[in-house]
C-alpha cells in the first residue's frame, strides 16, 4: 500500500459519520494500526530493509519503528506518534461502545496521518528530524563526539 493510498484511506475515515465509525470500532482500531504499519513498511522497503514481523510490547508497529530508528536517531521524531497510535488503538478496542468512540477513531486516524506525513516528508527530504530530534548536523558528515559517538546512542 503506498503512502497516497494510506493518506486517502485515513482522510476517508476522518470524514466518515459518527454512527458508521461506531458500528465498526474494533475493526477500525485494527485497521489504523495496519495503516501505521504500512507507512513504516514503506520506509523500510525504500531503504532496502526487510520489514520485521516481530512485535515490541505486543505491537508490530513499535517493532517496525524500532527497526527503522536503528542507526537513524532522527526517526525518533515519530516515536511518540507511533505510541499514540497504539494508545488510540487500545482505547478503541477496550471501549468499543464508548459514547466518544467515533471521536477517538478520528483522532487515531489523525495521529496515523501525522505518521504518514512525517515519513512521506522524510522520504523526500531525508534530513527531516535530523537537526532537531537527533541533534545532528545536516551539512557535514562529522558525527558529534565521534570519539564517543553519543549521537549514535539508541534514544
Amino acid at each position, binding site marked *: 500500500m503506498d503512502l497516497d493510498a494510506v493518506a486517502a484511506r485515513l482522510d476517508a475515515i476522518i470524514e466518515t459519520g459518527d454512527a458508521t465509525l461506531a458500528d465498526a470500532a474494533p475493526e477500525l482500531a485494527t485497521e489504523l494500526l495496519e495503516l501505521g504499519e504500512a507507512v513504516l513498511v514503506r520506509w523500510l522497503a525504500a531503504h532496502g530493509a526487510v520489514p520485521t514481523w516481530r512485535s515490541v510490547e505486543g505491537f508490530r508497529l513499535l517493532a517496525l519503528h524500532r527497526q527503522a530508528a536503528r542507526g537513524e*536517531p532522527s526517526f*525518533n*521524531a*515519530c516515536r*511518540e*506518534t507511533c*505510541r*499514540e497510535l497504539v*494508545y*488510540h488503538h487500545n482505547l478503541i478496542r477496550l471501549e468499543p461502545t464508548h459514547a466518544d468512540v467515533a*471521536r477517538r477513531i*478520528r*483522532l487515531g486516524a*489523525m*495521529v496515523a*496521518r*501525522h505518521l504518514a*506525513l*512525517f515519513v*512521506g*516528508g522524510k522520504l*523526500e*527530504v531525508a*534530513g*527531516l*528530524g*535530523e*537537526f*532537531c*530530534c*537527533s*541533534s*545532528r*548536523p*545536516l*551539512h*557535514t558528515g*562529522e558525527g*558529534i*563526539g*565521534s*570519539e*564517543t559517538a*553519543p*549521537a549514535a*546512542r539508541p*534514544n
Partner: protein
Amino acid sequence: MTGKHAKVAYYPGCALEGTGHAYNRSTKAVGKALGLDLVELKNWNCCGAMEVKNIDPKLQTYLSARNLSIAGEMGFDTVMAPCNGCYHNLKKAEYDLAHDPASRRVNNELSAKAGHGAYEAGRVNTIHALDWIKEAIGEDGLKARVKNSLKGLKIANYYGCMYTRPRHIFPEKDKGPGSESTAKPHFMDDLLAAAGAENVEYPLKTACCGGAHTLSDSDTSTKLVLNLLTTAEACGADVIATECPTCHTGLEMHQMRAEKVFGRKTTVKILYFTQLLGMALGLSARKVGVHENMSESADLLRARGLGR
C-alpha cells in the same frame, strides 16, 4: 513559592529579540508578576542555533558553552532559556563537554583564543521557562496568585521536538513522579491547569512540525502543521499553547500558508503559555505582547474576559 530559582540568569537568545519578541515580553512580565528575578546574561551570544550547528557542531558547543561560562562568571549556577532551540543547544553543549573529549578540546582552544575561561561541564544548570515557574512557584503557588482564571478556555499544549529530544541530553527528565516526561511532557499542562484552563488530551504534543525545513521544504511543513492544527481543533481546543518561538512562528505562519496554498482554514488560536499565564495573573493582553502575535486572538480573549 519554593525559594528555588527566585533569581536566575536569563538567556533570551536571538529569536526572543526578533520573531519571538512576544515570548520575551511575556516571560519577563510573568517573572515580575510572580516576584521572580531574571538577570540577563551580559554580552551573550547566539547559541549556535540551526546555522552553526549544521556546519560545525563543535563550534556550536563552544558558542553555547560561552553563555554558560558567562552565567558562571556572573555568579549563577542556573540559567533559564525559554526558547526550545537555545535550551536544547545549551543542554547539548553540557552533554558534549561531559562526554566528548574532542568537544572539550575545541571549547578549551576557542575559549583561550577568545580570552575567557573555558566552561566546564557541571557548573551551570540549564532550565527551561517551564522548569523555572514549575519549580519556583509550583501549581499551588500559581493557583493562589491567579486573578483572572482561564476557566473555560480549552487548550492543546504543544511542546515541539527540542524540549525532549534527543532524550540523553536531558538527564533530569523521566525520573518518575514530579519530573518531566520525554514521552508525554506535562509541565505546561500542569501550569495552565493551575491557572484554570481546561487542557484537552492532545495526541500530537511532541509531533514533528517540520520546523527546520520550514523554508527549504515549505509544503511538508505546512502539511505537518495543518495536521497539528486540525487535530487540536478535533480535540476541542480553542488555543494551542506554545513554549518555543520556532514552534510558535511555524504554527502561525503555516496556519496562514495552509489557507493560502491549500485552501484549508483553521481557527484555533496560538498563544505562548507565558501570555496565557500572564493574563491569568491579571496582566493586560498588551503587557504580554498579544498584539505582536500573527495569530489573531483578540475576539476570543475578549469573549473570555481575558487580558483587559
